[in-house]
């Protein structure tokens, strides 16, 4: 009973974080649009934007790390079996739990050149998987196997948040954060090359 309650709590927690990722994506998008369209500078928005851009890279790493740990929690502790589509998403996300950590440490926002395409692929797979779980095809999909059916909703919070939806949320949020991340300060580059 404790295990069942724990997984319910964890799923609620991760599902809410996934929704917060979308809130962040929307707010950042609106903020960027307002900044570009507005003819006069808004001090508060610019200050906020500067702060968000500074934390974007470590925040993206944090999301990658939490996504990886959450995924491992479900497969290693709860023994949910990842399907083929889950594995493709893992391939696209797991490396960034390390790569973005290094980039955040080195303040290398240039990592976006390598990270965004891979995360975009992960987001596309996750979007497809989300759709499959929301509207399971009667005949399954070519990715479905009896041992690990991709249509199985291990998590279904708030009537629509599934595990692939969480992966999709994480990928989209990381992409947006990487795109707005502030480039490495010149001083840091100088110190590294000296």
């Amino acid at each position, binding site marked *: *009973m404790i*295990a*069942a*309650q724990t*997984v*319910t*709590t*964890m799923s*609620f*927690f991760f599902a*809410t*974080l996934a929704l*917060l990722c979308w809130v962040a994506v929307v707010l950042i998008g609106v903020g960027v649009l307002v900044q570009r369209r507005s003819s006069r500078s808004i001090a508060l928005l610019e*200050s906020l934007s*500067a*702060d*968000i851009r*500074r*934390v974007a890279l*470590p*925040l993206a790493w944090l999301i990658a790390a939490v996504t990886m740990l959450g995924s491992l929690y479900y497969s290693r502790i709860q*023994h*949910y*079996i990842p399907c083929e589509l889950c594995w493709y998403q893992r391939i696209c996300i797991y490396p960034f739990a390390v790569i973005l950590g290094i980039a*955040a*440490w*080195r*303040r290398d926002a240039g990592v976006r050149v390598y990270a965004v395409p891979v995360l975009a692929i992960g987001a596309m797979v996750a979007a497809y998987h989300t759709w499959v779980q929301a509207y*399971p095809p*009667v005949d*399954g999909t070519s990715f*479905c196997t*009896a*041992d*690990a*059916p991709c*249509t*199985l*909703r*291990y*998590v*279904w919070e708030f009537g629509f948040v599934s595990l692939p939806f969480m992966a999709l949320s994480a990928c989209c949020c990381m992409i947006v954060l990487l795109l707005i991340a502030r480039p490495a*300060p010149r*001083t*840091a580059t*100088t*110190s*590294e090359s*000296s």
Partner: protein
Amino acid sequence: MSNQPSSKGSAPSRVAAASEQNAQNSTRWVWIGIAAVVLVVGVLAFVFTRSDGSGSGSATPDGGAATPGVTVVPSGKVAVGPIVVTGTQLPELANGGADPAVGQVIPTIDGQTFDGSAMSIGPTGEPTIIMVVAHWCPHCQREVPFLQSWLTANGAPEGVRLVALATSNDSGKPNYPAGQWLVREKWTVPTMVDDKASDGAQALGVTGFPYFIVVDAEGKVIERTSGELTATQWEALIAAAKSGSAQPTA
């Protein structure tokens, strides 16, 4: 996470260091805000999931009509149950042709639900639909939420008892144990756990999953069917249970 310039003493580097310090101070509140939000989400998750009883809701283990949306199958450690079958085993459902089990009284199966409470499937004096599901079966994984949505939307059918048997329980197969799966699906139908040899399913002549047996008030088989059902087919089974005879679906 700092990466301070190494060239000490020069004016540009001092300015850069001061600027960096200011930036760190100004972003500190962003991190504090993020930490606070995550903490609040954690507390909300704990409060909402531990206080609504969703993990420990009690179904009616004696097999009484479930109240959809109010109770779910109880959580518990029973993943493979003890089963005692009395009575005559039903023959297997033939592939095409008449079902040889129609008119035969179903055997009585005594066992447990997921929390160890006693539960019985057998003739009880009221029309009954018995659903047999397997945790690893993709068709059951689609059918269970589909039927639960129907029950939530329409309520438990009046005058028809619904029970389920979670069978073919195998720790080596996906989605094990069945109890956790059905709790996740907020399954409201009282469900018995079959034993390791799936004796309960064999007693009902199960040949595939999901599997449905419709019996009348005397416990005699009206109809049996296997495979995923549409809403129309499911409603036809309920109508069959109420009327005492199989209903056409077309």
